[in-house]
């Protein structure tokens, strides 16, 4: 909602697999993903995005929790562009997107 208000168009997916499908079919300028998701988790999404030649340069933002430094580092290694620490507020979200979206 905050993103829509900030002028972005948001496509939603219910899990990682659908997310990659949407990215493939409709494209996106920024990917925002959670880590824990059914069918395909956040790391899988990041790898899937980076493995796609069309989206090697697409920024990916990961939703992480403050406590889980290991997961954050793993996401980063996998190719995540940035992260949003939960619990996140709309300002933080829009801010993060602005920082990675051209």
């Amino acid at each position, binding site marked *: 909602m905050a993103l*829509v*208000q*900030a*002028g*972005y*168009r948001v496509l939603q997916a219910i899990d990682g697999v659908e997310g990659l499908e949407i990215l493939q079919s409709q*494209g*996106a*300028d*920024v990917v925002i993903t959670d880590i824990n998701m059914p069918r395909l988790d956040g790391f899988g999404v990041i790898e899937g995005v*980076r493995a796609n*030649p*069309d989206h*090697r*340069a*697409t*920024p*990916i933002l990961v939703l992480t929790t403050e406590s889980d430094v290991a997961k954050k580092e793993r996401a*980063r290694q996998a*190719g*995540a*562009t*940035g*992260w949003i620490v939960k619990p996140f507020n709309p300002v933080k979200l*829009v801010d993060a*997107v*602005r*920082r*990675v*979206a*051209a």
Partner: protein
Amino acid sequence: MDPFESIKATFFQECEELLTDLESGLLAMEGGDKDAETINAVFRAVHSIKGGAGAFGLEELIRFAHVFETALDQIRSGVIEPTDEVVKILLRANDVLADHVQAARSDGAVEQSRSQAMLDELQALIGGDGGAMDAEEDEEDFGFVPVQMVVEEVPEESADPGAAPAASDVGEGERAWRIEFQPNPEMYTKANEAGLVLRELARLGRIEVEIDGAEVPPLDQLMAEHAYLRWNIRLVTDKDVAAIREVFEFVEDDCILTIVEETPAAAPAAAFEDEPPAVVPPADEFDPAALLARLTGEVGGGEAAPEAAEAAPESAPEPAPAPTAEAAPQPAAPAAEPQEMGVAGLIALAQKATAEVEQAPAPAAPAAAPKAAASGGSSAPAPQATIRVDLDRVDRLINAVGELVIQQAMLSQRVIESGLARSSAVALGLEDLELLTREIQDSVMAIRAQPVKSVFQRMPRLVREAADATGKKVRLVMEGENTEVDKTVIERLSDPITHMLRNAIDHGLEGPAEREMEGKPPEGTVRLAALHRGGRIVIEVSDDGRGINRERVRKIAVSKGLIAEDAVLSDEETDNLIFLPGFSTAETISDLSGRGVGMDVVKRSVVALGGRISISSEPGKGSKFTMSLPLTLAVLDGMVVTSAEQTLVAPLSNIVESLTPKADEVHFLGGGQDAVIRIRDTFVPLIDVGRALGFRDTPLNAADSVAILVESEGGGKAALLVDAIQGQRQVVIKSLEANYQHVDGVAAATILGDGRVALILDVDALVSTSRRKAAAPREKRMAV
């Protein structure tokens, strides 16, 4: 579209925005704003246009922009004082520049004499050969738009390479930081972009960015996946180091980063301000056209996307110092790989960065992101949540809503007729539906509403040209530019406003000498204002000129047979004579407003929009034209009446009052066909609507009927005789011409709640027809 054309299209789009910025900047200067930032913005606009024009080899445009820019540069550096006179010259130069852009866009040509005269004027301003383009400068200024990014509020001196920024630029509560930033290749593989980081950094305060490209190898040795660039940044901010660190949050593990506070003692920037960064391609080989060709041609060869990220940032954060010839080719090297971004993306990105850093911080809409940009998309970010919709679609929606309103009204009537109780669930539901329908209708109308700004914007130029043509000094004051009105109305406002403004300058204002004799300031003021009043939009055009010469107006009207010699007219009536067809007070036809088209044309176009126009004037003080128009052409407040069993609608805006005539108030003239009615000691024609429209032949007994006193747009009054009044209602206008054919005395049609078609009366036509029939001299002048 081939890539080159699409870049060019983007450039022209950009030009339009730049020209708007330029004009508003100059107008601000005219209004006394001599702020360095304003002057800078004006300079930048011209500079960017020239830079872009250089890339496309638009010689004429470059030549003009160059001289213009030189003049502005001298103002910027204080060589020329931006007096009123100077700003006026600049404003005219702005017009010529716009013409040049237009000509370049349409492959047309600019009137040579005009352009040359303007050039001479600017040259005179600059003094001598200040504007001559020597080879060296030539090359420098061909710098491509993106590399000329001027980061917000960079101290002016830094435009001069070698001049170190003064240490005193650090204000109260601010600190200066030195940041070295060298991304590792890994940073780019994670889709982080140095340019975006720098953009974020620029939000924190004033920033100077120096790019270090010393490590960039020659093109053939360049590795797509590698990172060669580093940036030296000087940031003056009131934020703390944590805020700076936060900007690098996503990238700090993938780059070499040092952040140190600048000590006042250290000579700021000396280390890297003086020498331009080492650069790969030799400067003297730089040719923008060739560069473009190379970029567009060779882009396909690359394999890696990550470097695309690098390509754009490299061009974007170019430091403020005047771009050197060497600076320009830099984007060429890394840009050789990306396939998708292409040159357009590169340019658009860089422009975007420029725009965003210079303007208010705003998130870039995803639509403007690389992919959209690469396909020739817009260059400016669109932070507002707006969409462009085809006007046809909106109109279709409006039509559908019109039908909805009608259907809703019909349903309500059916329910009432069926005898359902007012408190029944159906009736209550209908009431809600009615409210909802009204709300939908209002919302849909609001979609079509646009600020009148689009029309007003064109007027400053018109006024300048009119002022030049007449040799008068004119200041245009505009108010209420954001007043909203239906798009159709806006489009048709342009001509009347243009005409009224020209008229005010040509006829209203006196020349400077005459004004001074009368103790007025030599510069005349013309005011253009828009405001909402009573559900209508009012446009006022006023001047502080001589006012209407009533004696002369009267003489002309008599000589042209428009009024009788002995006619007794009030001042107001005299003033309004100028709206009569064939009336023109200019004794000799002037080039400006006297092309045989008089105020009658203005009046006609205003009336065609359902509006009215009037003038008030005070001798020696000025005149004021007031034009009032309905906000929309789609609905109308009307009085529903019956006549000869027909349902008719009289526009409420025409109605003065309604009354039941007494038999002794009605007097028949001549053969008894034409009647007048006495209303409080004045006689007005009585028009039997049923007969006028041919519904019946037999005269109506006035005593059994209702008379509606109406006033036409021209001020002529008449009483319309109808059988009964049903009530007041908002009706949706349906064109009669589009669905049937034109009928005299009928303006349009509508569909009423019971589903029947009702005609909307054309009161003006009815009144003037009756007046033509009863053509008495006194009546004639009333039939304005």
